[in-house]
């Protein structure tokens, strides 16, 4: 994963959330993303982009945290 654009597009596709324009503080749960959806999303991102989320990483709760995690993965630091 070289940059975040494909992952952001994937999130938009799956959850209908545009992470570029979304309020960073917006809670994912208030946007209809429950823990199961998030689990599935992260699994799909790992599979699709060949990245691995560190098991110690807490699940993102807000749009900002999700965007941050994807940026982290894109930078290859996870």
């Amino acid at each position, binding site marked *: 994963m070289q940059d975040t654009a494909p992952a952001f597009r994937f999130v938009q*596709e*799956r*959850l*209908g959330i545009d992470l570029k324009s979304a309020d960073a503080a917006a809670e994912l749960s208030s946007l*209809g993303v429950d823990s*199961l*959806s998030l*689990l*599935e999303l992260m*699994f*799909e991102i790992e599979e699709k982009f060949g990245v691995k989320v560190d098991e110690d990483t807490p699940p993102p709760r807000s749009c900002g945290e999700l965007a941050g995690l994807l940026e982290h993965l894109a930078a290859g630091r996870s």
Partner: protein
Amino acid sequence: MSARRVAVTGLGMVSPVGASAQDSFDALLDARSGLRLYEPPDAPRPIAVPAGVCADFDPVAALGATQAARMDRYCQLGVVAGLAAWRDAGLAQTADEDRAAWAVAWGTGMGGALTYERSYRQLFAGGRDRLAPLTVVQAMNNACASHLAIALQLGGSCSTYSVACASAAMAIGEAFRRVRSGAAPAALAGGSEAPLAYGVIRAWLALQVLAPGDAQSAAGACKPFQAARGGLVLAEGAAALVLEDWQRAERRGARIYAELAGYGESCDCANLVRPDADGQARALRAALADAGMAPAEVDYVNAHATGTREGDAVEIAALAAALGDRAPAVAVSSTKSAHGHPLGAAGALEAVATVLALHRRAIPPTLGDAAGLDPACAGVAHVIGAARREAPLRAALSNSFAFGGSNAVLAFRA
């Protein structure tokens, strides 16, 4: 006899012959087959068998991408049929009344068979070491009932019956009991199945009960009651009924399609796969007794008949035993000849067909040729080849007889 009566106020269906209950019933009346030659995708050793496929079903269009991705196909079909029944009953999706006691009863034989197969393929053939996190909740047999309960805020009993080919009929019967007893003012009942996985087809082939067929003959491959019958045809599909306390339905001005008047069940307690006429007759008599219905009232039976050599003739023997002198006058057909055998969902598709036969006063035929009737299946008034329309029907039965010997009969009144 209970004072409470149970009204059927909503119907939904997604089947190989149509995307709705009414469209499917129209196709059945017009003797249109939904069967075709089916090749399961990505099969390691390609096969093609006649099957009933809901080819036009688009889960993403019907449910949205997020919901559809969370469900196995059996659940997608079931939720779409269940919600359609609910809308048909004129009930709002969000609760505008207290639904704390309202029930869901669902039937499925194989639940998430496609999900299991996809997952095993990834593990055993794909060399993967982990599965999608939602695998468990997609595959579980009770997922469909729970998705419906959540969507419609039905807070009473939420049960799933897995009784092979009698699954949905038992679900409908149990829901009927809950409404008649007063435990639930209303219930959503039905069943769904999506069994067209490569491994499932291989397993049924191994049992040697599938009807043969090629691209030309697949549409007519299921020939219940006919001498040329060669077995059953697997199918996917879903159907649902809204069952409602009669007085409640009347008070809110609901359209009442028919009365579900009785439910009977029995076990052959004889053999896992060979059906038993005595066992089936016990379920038939139990349904009639439960409904307070005399054999003379019965004008139509939607038969279980799957098109197997042994099963069809045994069912006719059971009808002759239970209906006695009335049997020769009773119209009988098997709509499986058109929609195939959706296993655990069969009882729901056929209950809907039976209700619509009463409501629209028309009997859908067994597809095929009346001249080809097997003498071993004679003794009732078969409706073969063409529908009987303008048929004033008073009462009708829907039979579901399962591998394992579990029998369920639903008795409806116009």
